[in-house]
């Protein structure tokens, strides 16, 4: 049986130090001259009995879109807000664009764009008034009318904020983050609760920002989002990074590209995991009650073999699902838990 990558092996393979420069040649070359967009060392934050962030190291090269993934309470927001200078770390250092919060706070604020996980902007202001308000804080930046077009809120220009839909409010929050023409953009769960269409519209905005050389730090629960937008992803759990690398690398660390999930009908004898791993093309197997998850290199060989095995074993298959391995599968294999607990 191929061992499921544990926390230690994950950080050994695509580790923090290797991942800053190894696979991303364009940013690696610029990283040599310019300071990294973000560098954190041993960041720690404790809330009473919760260790929200536990000695976190992070490097994000300039021009990268970096994703923070993890279940509720993993410490993503706390991490991001410490980097944004909104939450004071108990210990550790943060350096952004070569600047520090203690010395260069005002200069830094000019260069960051922030969308918090949850902000309810002034209800009774019009969309354009809110954008203009935020524009007034920055020395340089975009024309509020242009930003309106960028986030596709032109039609809502003169609508009160409290009359906007959830997705439109999120887009307004991003408009406020973009209007000062930031070098680094922080988006804390920008698409949570949005329908697929609004989500894709937001992705377009982020990609447009990236295409102009901006650095992005994004937290999300959505794997597709991280896979689509991020060059690198850190998977967080209990305040630590348990895996770090490009989405491809991380999925590859599962040892197989595909995932086969199936369930047996009630009353069936459990299938031993060892027997499943012995099947051709199967890399690992995990059982959770009547449900089985296999990571598989060659589904066209593994699935017929699985069917044959079931025939011999005797038992009814009630479900069969196969898909490309995702970060969700990685998280499951790292922690034994699903990213989004339902």
């Amino acid at each position: 049986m191929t061992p499921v990558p544990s926390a230690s092996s994950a950080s050994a393979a695509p580790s923090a130090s290797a991942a800053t420069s190894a696979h991303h040649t364009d940013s690696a070359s610029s990283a040599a001259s310019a300071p990294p967009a973000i560098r954190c060392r041993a960041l720690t934050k404790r809330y009473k009995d919760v260790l929200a962030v536990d000695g976190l190291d992070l490097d994000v090269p300039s021009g990268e879109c970096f994703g923070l993934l993890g279940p509720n309470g993993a410490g993503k927001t706390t991490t991001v807000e410490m980097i944004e200078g909104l939450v004071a770390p108990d210990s550790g250092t943060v350096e952004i664009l070569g600047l520090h919060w203690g010395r260069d706070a005002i200069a830094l604020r000019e260069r960051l764009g922030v969308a918090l996980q949850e902000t309810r902007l002034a209800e009774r202001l019009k969309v354009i008034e809110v954008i203009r308000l935020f524009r007034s804080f920055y020395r340089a930046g975009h024309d509020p009318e242009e930003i309106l077009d960028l986030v596709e809120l032109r039609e809502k220009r003169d609508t009160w904020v409290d009359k906007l839909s959830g997705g439109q409010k999120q887009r307004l929050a991003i408009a406020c983050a973009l209007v000062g023409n930031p070098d680094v953009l922080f988006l804390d769960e920008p698409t949570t609760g949005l329908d697929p269409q609004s989500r894709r519209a937001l992705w377009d905005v982020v990609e447009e920002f990236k295409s102009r050389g901006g650095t992005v730090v994004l937290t999300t629960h959505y794997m597709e989002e991280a896979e689509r937008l991020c060059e690198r992803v850190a998977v967080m759990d209990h305040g630590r990074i348990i895996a770090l690398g490009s989405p491809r690398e991380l999925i590859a660390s599962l040892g197989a590209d595909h995932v086969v999930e199936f369930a047996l009908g009630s009353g069936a004898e459990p299938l031993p995991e060892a027997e499943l791993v012995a099947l051709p093309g199967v890399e690992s197997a995990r059982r959770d009650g009547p449900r089985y998850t296999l990571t598989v290199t060659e589904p066209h060989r593994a699935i017929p073999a699985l069917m044959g095995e079931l025939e011999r074993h005797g038992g009814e298959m009630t479900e069969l699902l196969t898909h490309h391995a995702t970060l969700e599968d990685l998280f499951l294999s790292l922690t034994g838990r699903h990213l989004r607990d339902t």
Partner: protein
Amino acid sequence: MMNYLLPLKELTLARFREQLRQPEVLFWVFAFPLLLAVALGLAFRNRPPDVIHVAVESGPRAEALVADLKAAGGFAASVLSPEVASEELRTGQVALVVVPGDSLVYRYDPTRSESRLARIATDDALQQALGRRNPRATADHIVTERGARYIDFLIPGLLGLNLMSTGMWGLGYAVVDARRRKLMKRLLASPMRRSQYLLSFIAARLVILAPEVIVLLGFAALAFGVPVRGSILSLAVVVVLGAMCFAGLGLLTASRAQTVEAVSGLMNLVMLPMWVLSGVFFSSAKFPAAMQPFIRVLPLTALNDALRGIMLQGASLASLAAPIGICVVWGSVSFAVALRTFRWI
């Protein structure tokens, strides 16, 4: 300089727009004090002098006594049987019963002030009619002057009350609301300065202040003829100082609260004693002497004293140094403490 003022202007505009777009704010700031002024003005309007109701028990010369009283003027008198007269005295329809005879007997309840008045007035009128000689001639000079009526007392008090509630609620509620929505946190993530944020509240307060004061005082002048005897400039100075003083107190009350409920409780705790003690609806002199030093130093008492001094007595700013000083101290101390304790995130 422009870099500092532009965000301040935008923040103030935002704050101002938010207020104008909230009908309930407009009601409490503009309509409520007017309604209060009208209601209290009607309830305590100055009535023509009351007629004194007197019963004369039937008996010898009863009719003559009634005629004497009617001739004296200001009395409504009639002859009644002793039973009916007693009944009417008991139910308050008459203030006094006169029992005719060689010596006149007055029956009344001395704890009713109208009865005591009736006793004096009736005796005076009857003795006069029976031929009393006054040792010295007297003359009455009737005065009902603007500035001495209840409404004149009330309007400056209502103005002070309004400055207090608008200042405290306006700032306190908005600050806590922004904190709760994390709007404050979001603003802090931008290059906005904290001082710009706080100053925008002061600026927006000053913008609303002018119409607020003009509406109330204009209405009082037109509807009730309430005067402003002192200089408009002095009045403006006191109004602005008062508004700033309560803006400071509002900021202090809201400096740490995280929920609207918490701040509401605190606000009421601060404001309620002043509603009662600070001489808004009736003079604070009615409270026991032992409480006076405490009442005097309350900011609303000081503001009301200064407003009344200017509006009713035409006092100068210099002569109001004490109450103005109290407002300034309250305002600056609360601002200073609020800035130190303010919870930004």
